[in-house]
């Protein structure tokens, strides 16, 4: 195992233990206050737990039983937070060169490394700018480059997309997808898309405890914790991009809006849409901008003011009167109808 973590933080009521394989990206999901950030802080050495043991690549970073507690700057663990926190008095390139410089590299090789990393995150031309002159998305890219330029053995990401515009998040997600491949990473997020697109495995925390731990698709397909179930409420459909629409495995054509980089024809994509965007009809009433899926209702579940209507793979949230009008019961054949503009299509590869 590349990274082994176990810790107990009594005053925050967090008890967690897990492992990350070399090169694996693990998404840590959970509601606010579940203890995700506490886990990150312990891993980075910014919080000392009452008891715990943290091992990275065979080296003890923390072992309360033996009194070992390696200082943050000697852990080779980089932390990237919601807020990029670029040093305001340094240029973007000097920010990225900060890690290599701190590890004793000379000015010239450190700058060369920084230039390299800026190129990798698509900021090759902005190295001489000051952080204040970057947009939110650019600043977070620069922060990614800065974290990776420090050559950490473990990268910790604390909701890196949370503070970003929905318009720029997909592009950063794509960048992360590229740079995180083969890199041991722990990613805290509450966005199921982050988990789906970036992580090999998902750990779900609730109330300071780990409640689920498994391959991303398994956890999202068969959620056992309520948080994962909520997340999994988002409708997801994987398929192939034809150039104009998504071809699902069963041959259904699905029209949506591409979010992030344009996929090439034949590439694997995933389409996502909210249950609230789904209308339920008894007959096939699809117009041209709409997608219609023939389904059989399997389950009805109250969800606040709405009723969640489930079929085998998809769910729709509609009002109780609508359910009554349609006379929906488990077993009713129906059509789930979604506007193309409500469907976001993401490149998977």
């Amino acid at each position, binding site marked *: 195992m590349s990274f082994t973590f176990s810790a107990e933080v009594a005053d925050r009521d967090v008890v967690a233990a897990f492992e990350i394989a070399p090169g694996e990206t693990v998404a840590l999901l959970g509601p606010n206050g579940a203890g995700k950030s506490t886990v990150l802080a312990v891993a980075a050495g910014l919080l000392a737990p009452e008891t715990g043991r943290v091992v990275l690549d065979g080296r003890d970073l923390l072992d309360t039983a033996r009194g070992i507690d390696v200082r943050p700057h000697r852990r080779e663990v980089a932390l990237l*937070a919601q807020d990029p926190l670029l040093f305001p008095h340094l240029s973007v390139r000097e920010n990225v060169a900060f890690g290599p410089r*701190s590890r004793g590299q000379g000015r010239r090789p450190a700058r060369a490394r920084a230039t390299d990393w800026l190129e990798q995150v698509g900021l090759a031309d902005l190295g001489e700018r000051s952080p204040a002159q970057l947009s939110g998305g650019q600043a977070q890219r620069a922060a990614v480059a800065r974290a990776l330029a420090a050559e950490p053995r473990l990268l*910790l990401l604390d909701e890196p997309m949370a503070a970003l515009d929905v318009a720029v998040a997909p592009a950063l997600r794509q960048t992360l997808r590229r740079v995180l491949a083969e890199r041991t990473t722990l990613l805290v997020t509450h966005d199921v898309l982050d988990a789906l697109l970036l992580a090999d495995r998902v750990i779900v925390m609730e109330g300071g405890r780990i409640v689920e731990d498994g391959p991303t698709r398994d956890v999202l397909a068969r959620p056992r914790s309520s948080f994962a179930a909520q997340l999994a409420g988002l409708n997801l459909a994987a398929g192939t991009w034809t150039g104009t629409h998504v071809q699902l495995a069963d041959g259904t054509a699905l029209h949506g809006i591409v979010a992030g980089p344009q996929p090439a024809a034949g590439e694997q994509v995933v389409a996502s849409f909210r249950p609230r965007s789904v209308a339920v009809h008894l007959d096939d009433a699809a117009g041209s901008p709409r997608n219609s899926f023939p389904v059989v209702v399997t389950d009805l579940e109250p969800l606040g003011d709405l009723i969640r209507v489930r079929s085998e793979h998809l769910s729709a949230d509609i009002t109780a009167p609508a359910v009554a009008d349609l006379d929906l019961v488990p077993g009713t054949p129906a059509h789930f109808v979604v506007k193309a503009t409500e469907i976001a299509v993401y490149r998977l590869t």
Partner: protein
Amino acid sequence: MSRPRSTGLPRWVYVPAGLGAAFVLLPLVAIVLKVDWANFGSLITSESSRDALSLSLRTSTASTVLCVLIGVPMATVLARTTFPGQAVARSLVLLPLVLPPVVGGLALLYTFGRRGLLGHTLEVLDLQIAFSTIAVVLAQTFVALPFLVVSLEGSLRTAGDQYERVAATLGAGPTTVFRRVTLPLVLPGLLAGAVLSFARAMGEFGATITFAGSLQGVTRTLPLEIYLQRESDPDAAVALALVLVVFAVVVITIARPDRTTR
């Protein structure tokens, strides 16, 4: 042009406010009116004046450097750590600010003087501090230090430690973090504190005359020279006083509070 309107002040407030402003400004006007402009140049360039001015500039520079060297670590420890008795320590650092300077001078004399607390030690080391230029620097540092510590500690707290945490996870050791992140981030506060300390050192009188005496060219700084000339040569005293007033105005302009608190 439109501008926001306040909800309005009671009219009578302007009367004491105006009187207060006059109270501060009138004495300055009075000094300017008193200056013997015809001989101004020769008055401030007489031998004793030049000695005093040069001594003041040299000792104030030295004490500002000393303030930075010990004040920066003090402010950092106060702002970035917690230790038992920290609140008391913070108050004690401010003590020279409220202590009458002449009392500070006495205290220094009983510390570094020949018969003082460290007197014997200093004698063994063959160091004679009291009534020397070093004593002037010590007296000025004693009264000026709080200005730097208070100003810098405020800047450090405002800046917060989040950048320092990021720097540490990027592999930077404490010294690198301090040098490349902490200090650059609070540089404006440090400069403002240093300028204020320098100004306080230039104006220091009570502690200096008590601890260092008044020997021309050795311990007689500008304020001491002004005080002594006041009787023998009032015109020279006024001319030198104007030099200090101009200097103070320049300092206030550089270290304006609204420019230093970002």
